């Protein structure tokens, strides 16, 4: 448990993906079965313990600490698990009594006073009676630890993650508090923090399930895609998976008929790339502004089974029963999840209103009907189509969708073009080029090579995404925050604002935050500007001068805009990034909130104007 806790602790602080990978791989390499398998299960979210609730933890700490001290501590730390982990009274935290020195002891030379004592400087006291005078009810009876070593969590049989998991799966609800308390007594601060996170669910250490699987794959010859493919058929503690990766066993067989298949991804297209490409080699589709999903169905003896996966392989079937119901043909569709009302695809803003809900009510299903727009077919029945060229898969898809014959599932149409000029025109005006009323949900064009098989990952060449021109505004830099990892010495996160009419004339209102889009050279320039023009500091954040005649104008590009109650401006941007630095422009000439209002009105009308 201590090693697993140390891993979580490091992951929680480490900002870089590659470093997180290294930390996890190193852990898996040096930890035996089944311990590492349970750790993998915890990291991939495969474990859950329904009886352990935060309220239970709260009760445990309330029984053991002074309420005033708990309140002060919780207020300071701000996180319940962490406060409890740090405050938990343990035998080993009990201090020994002090040994008062004779007042006028012989003068000691200053300088080095070597002490070999490993614990408190005045342990091994003869004044045990002292403890009796001053009881310490907030940590139970004062232990005479001067008589011996304090109990060490490492001492004796160390608590393993395996034993925690095994005990929790068999333990009744009634015994849980007592068992948890025993474990918390035996662990150190980091161990307690990790245990509480583990049992109450949600490790939140910034390592996705996908990253954990990639870290396991790095143990051996297997690549991350292999592990992803096998994953649905594996169960914790994954002994056969580790054996295979380390060359000590056969590759486990995928048994899951509705397994997730790692998706094929596209590279962004720059207009300059077009000259090198032959239009005849490609098919074009609309790029839909929804969420990428994979809809898989199979037939079993027990009946039909269907699953809907997100792009990262997360099973999201429960949120979309309306789609699951209509997946009655065995196969695997790659497509876009959209909301379609009155025969018209809605914008991403509308889709988000369904995505953000926790419970799926009848009203939600009626108001936000889910729709699947299919653009690829990975399997037809038992047959794996991924080796076929795209053009051939497309033909099979057309046939498959026709056989399904469900209004909720349709084919993403091809965009006709004879040359790049025609495609450029279509990208500029999707409504006129065939997208019609659905143009509100088009965010660009996908280019797919006719001959390309379906290759997991992001191979360069076969697929290109060519987004619509972003929206552009000129905004004023207001606040800058230091970045993380490699950027921790740079002010690299920028909050920017636009002008609006305030009570006392024009004022800037923050409308967004961006932390990419600039070059390394530009980052150094902005960083220098921030350091020289700071007007106030709030922890890692600096307020930067922003007056009509003083300050820095940033050209900000973004993909979309929606209304938001969380922001002072009432707006939230999608994918804002810094596209240019406008050193030449006085802040007074930056854009106004009215421009953003006009953009949002245009988006809401279908962006076709």
């Amino acid at each position, binding site marked *: 448990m201590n090693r697993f806790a140390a891993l979580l602790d490091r992951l929680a602080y480490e*900002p870089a993906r590659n470093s997180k990978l290294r930390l996890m791989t190193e852990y898996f390499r040096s930890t035996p079965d089944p311990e590492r398998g349970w750790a993998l299960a915890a990291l991939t979210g495969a474990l859950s313990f329904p009886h352990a609730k935060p309220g239970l933890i709260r009760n445990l700490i309330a029984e053991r600490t002074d309420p005033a001290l708990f309140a*002060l501590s919780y207020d300071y730390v701000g996180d319940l698990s962490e406060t409890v982990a740090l405050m938990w009274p343990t035998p080993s935290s009990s201090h020994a009594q002090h040994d*008062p020195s004779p*007042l006028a002891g012989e003068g000691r030379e*200053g300088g080095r006073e070597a002490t070999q004592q490993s614990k408190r400087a*005045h342990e091994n006291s003869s004044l045990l009676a002292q403890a009796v*005078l001053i009881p310490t009810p*907030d940590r139970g009876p004062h232990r005479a630890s001067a008589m011996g070593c304090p109990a060490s969590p490492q001492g004796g049989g160390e608590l393993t993650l395996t034993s925690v998991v095994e005990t929790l799966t068999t333990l009744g609800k009634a015994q849980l508090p007592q068992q948890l308390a025993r474990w918390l007594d035996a662990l150190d601060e980091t161990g307690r923090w990790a245990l509480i996170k583990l049992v109450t669910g949600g490790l939140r250490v910034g390592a996705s399930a996908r990253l954990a699987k990639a870290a396991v794959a790095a143990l051996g010859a297997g690549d991350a895609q292999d592990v992803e493919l096998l994953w649905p058929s594996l169960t914790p503690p994954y002994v056969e998976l580790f054996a295979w990766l380390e060359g000590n066993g056969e590759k486990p067989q995928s048994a899951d008929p509705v397994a997730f298949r790692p998706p094929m991804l596209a590279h962004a297209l720059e207009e300059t790339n077009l000259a090198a490409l032959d239009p005849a080699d490609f098919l074009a589709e609309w790029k839909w502004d929804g969420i990428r999903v994979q809809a898989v169905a199979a037939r079993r003896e027990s009946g039909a089974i269907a699953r809907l996966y997100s792009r990262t392989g997360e099973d999201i079937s429960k949120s979309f029963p309306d789609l699951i119901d209509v997946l009655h043909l065995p196969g695997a569709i790659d497509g876009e999840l959209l909301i379609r009302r009155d025969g018209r695809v809605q914008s991403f803003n509308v889709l988000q209103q369904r995505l953000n809900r926790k419970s799926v009510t009848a009203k939600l299903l009626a108001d936000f009907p889910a729709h699947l727009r299919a653009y690829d077919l990975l399997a037809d029945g038992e047959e794996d189509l991924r080796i076929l060229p795209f053009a051939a898969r497309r033909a099979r898809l057309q046939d498959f969708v026709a056989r399904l014959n469900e209004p909720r599932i349709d084919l993403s149409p091809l965009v006709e073009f004879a040359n790049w000029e025609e495609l450029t025109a279509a990208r500029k005006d999707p409504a006129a080029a065939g997208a019609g009323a659905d143009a509100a949900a088009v965010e660009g064009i996908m280019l797919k090579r006719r001959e390309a098989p379906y290759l997991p990952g992001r191979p360069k060449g076969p697929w290109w995404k060519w987004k619509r021109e972003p929206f552009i505004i000129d905004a004023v830099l207001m606040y800058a925050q230091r970045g993380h990892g490699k950027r921790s010495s740079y002010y690299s996160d920028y909050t920017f604002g636009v002008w609006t009419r305030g009570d006392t004339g024009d004022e800037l209102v923050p409308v967004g935050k961006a932390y990419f889009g600039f070059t390394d050279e530009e980052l150094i320039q902005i960083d220098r500007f921030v350091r020289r023009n700071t007007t106030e*500091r709030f*922890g890692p954040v600096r307020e930067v001068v922003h007056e009509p005649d003083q300050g820095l104008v940033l050209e900000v590009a973004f993909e979309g805009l929606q209304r938001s109650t969380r922001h002072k401006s009432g707006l939230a941007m999608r994918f804002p990034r810094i596209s240019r630095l406008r050193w030449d422009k006085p802040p007074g000439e930056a854009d106004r909130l009215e421009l953003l209002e006009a953009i949002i009105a245009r988006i809401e009308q279908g962006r076709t104007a």
Partner: protein
Amino acid sequence: MRPEDILALTPAGISCKCGGFHIDPTRPVARALITHAHSDHARAGHGAVLATQETLDLMRLRYGENFAGATQAIRYGESLTLDGATVTFHPAGHVLGSAQIAVEAGGLRIVASGDYKDIADPTCAPFELVRCDVFITEATFALPVFRHGDPGGEIAKLLRSVALFPERAHLVGAYSLGKAQRVIALLRAAGYASPIYLHGAMESITHYYESRGIALGELRPVRGAAKAELAGTMTLCPPSALTDLWARRFPDPVNAFASGWMRVRARARQQGVSLPLVISDHADWDGLTATVAATGAGEIWVTHGQEDALVHWCATHGLKARPLDIVGYGEEDEPDAAANDETGE
């Protein structure tokens, strides 16, 4: 005589009227007794300063030869009568030369402990417990969430990271006086034998420690070192340097920070630290409460830090306690400020 007649709070800090001196005054005074050389306790410009030899030496290093009108060194355990009061200096275990100051008058003994810690530190004399009637304690980490644990475990964590990322540089933020030298000594004790690099701001103090017989192994200035040369190395620097332009000379640095504040995740994250090391030169909650109890003092005065919690604890344990609001101690909240480097935590 009441304790308040011996020591009282004045705008310049704690003052002893009958002895004619101040302890760790925050403004220039005629006679100052200084507990230790951190700049929030030891300021320049006093008429006469009484302190341990190390504290005087360190003040001279930081402020120059003329930091005070006159100086007098006192040894641990030595007593001195100043007008109507007798003062004795005892080791505080905080940093090299740090002392608690016992003041006796009218049959009462008050101990002003300055900053202290009650666990072993290879770079300074161990804390000595002094029985007294009134104990003046710091409260930097006076919340039950602060338990510093074993510094050896934190050093092991740092060494594991160096082994795992041999192509990266490890920057260890540590306060220039005390913490930096303690971290180096702990690294050596853990068997780390490679040269350790130093930020320019820590060179003179670290060399002073060595001159007092504290072995720190091979130390190199980081100044002038090539970027590639710094891969796989460890450099000690003031915490503010971690986020400074200075940090850009290192290959893909891992930012570590040795401080008791690192116990709280939000604080570590806020400072952009990816490897927090809980190593403190202040007593933790258990250390504070155990010490307060063991002095036998019937009255506790609590200065700088989380006074509320410690005053509350004293009250629930039958001890009379009150906060002493001294302005100017322990201002460590602003991570950017250079002053942050001066408080010892």
